[in-house]
């Protein structure tokens, strides 16, 4: 699988680190509801199909970016701004 690093160009997936779901919204600072924090930290969807994820080019420029990837086909939709 080739991943289009926004700085280095198309590079092999072995140079990258997966960083998790990029669609989750962090609760606002000061949120006191423990269930909200629990759900944010511990509950994850496992979507099949189009997904937006964090990736880091850990063996390259070390930058983090958001990537659109189809989890069923590994088709890359490109970098998400």
């Amino acid at each position: 699988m080739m991943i289009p690093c926004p700085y280095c160009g198309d590079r092999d997936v072995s140079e990258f680190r997966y960083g998790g779901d990029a669609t989750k919204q962090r609760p606002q600072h000061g949120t006191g509801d423990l269930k909200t924090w629990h759900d944010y930290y511990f509950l994850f969807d496992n979507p099949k199909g189009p997904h937006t994820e964090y990736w880091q080019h850990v063996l390259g420029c070390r930058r983090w970016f958001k990537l659109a990837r189809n989890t069923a086909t590994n088709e890359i939709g490109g970098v998400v701004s």
Partner: protein
Amino acid sequence: MLERRSALASATPYVSGSLSIAERPGFSLTQVAGVEEKIAAVTGPLPEKVARAQVNGALTIFRIGPAQFWIVGPEMDDTASRLQGQCAVTPLSNSRVRIALEGAPAREVLSMLIPVDVHQTVFTPGTVALTGIHHTPVTVHCTGETAFDIYVMRTFALNAWEVITDAARAFAGNP
């Protein structure tokens, strides 16, 4: 007086046919980050893309990210001091070891080590790749048709050296 000691002091240069692998010391390396116009006022033009090196006289400049650069210069170089106050300056001369891989099979050896297309029509002289050898970050600079400089972290240098020379042994006896 502190004496600079190579991390590859115990490594024997590798030569087989036209292929040679040897440490190439005698350089300074400075990482800078900041406003590109301020950096360029001291160093000269900066590379526009990560993939290409910019040579300005004695300096070779790699772009390693947005507004972040590596400046390779001669061992005694005042570029870092001239950039002080202009941008964030990190001296890296003692943190990296430069290994030169040269000879006819150099591209084949490199293709066994990094997940980058090193075909002569793609990885041409002047091309740079920030990539990894054996799970450690390295910077590979194509300096000639069959010549490459590999910048390795000092602490991983001996390990990288063994991996590179191990790959080279597949071509032992080649002309």
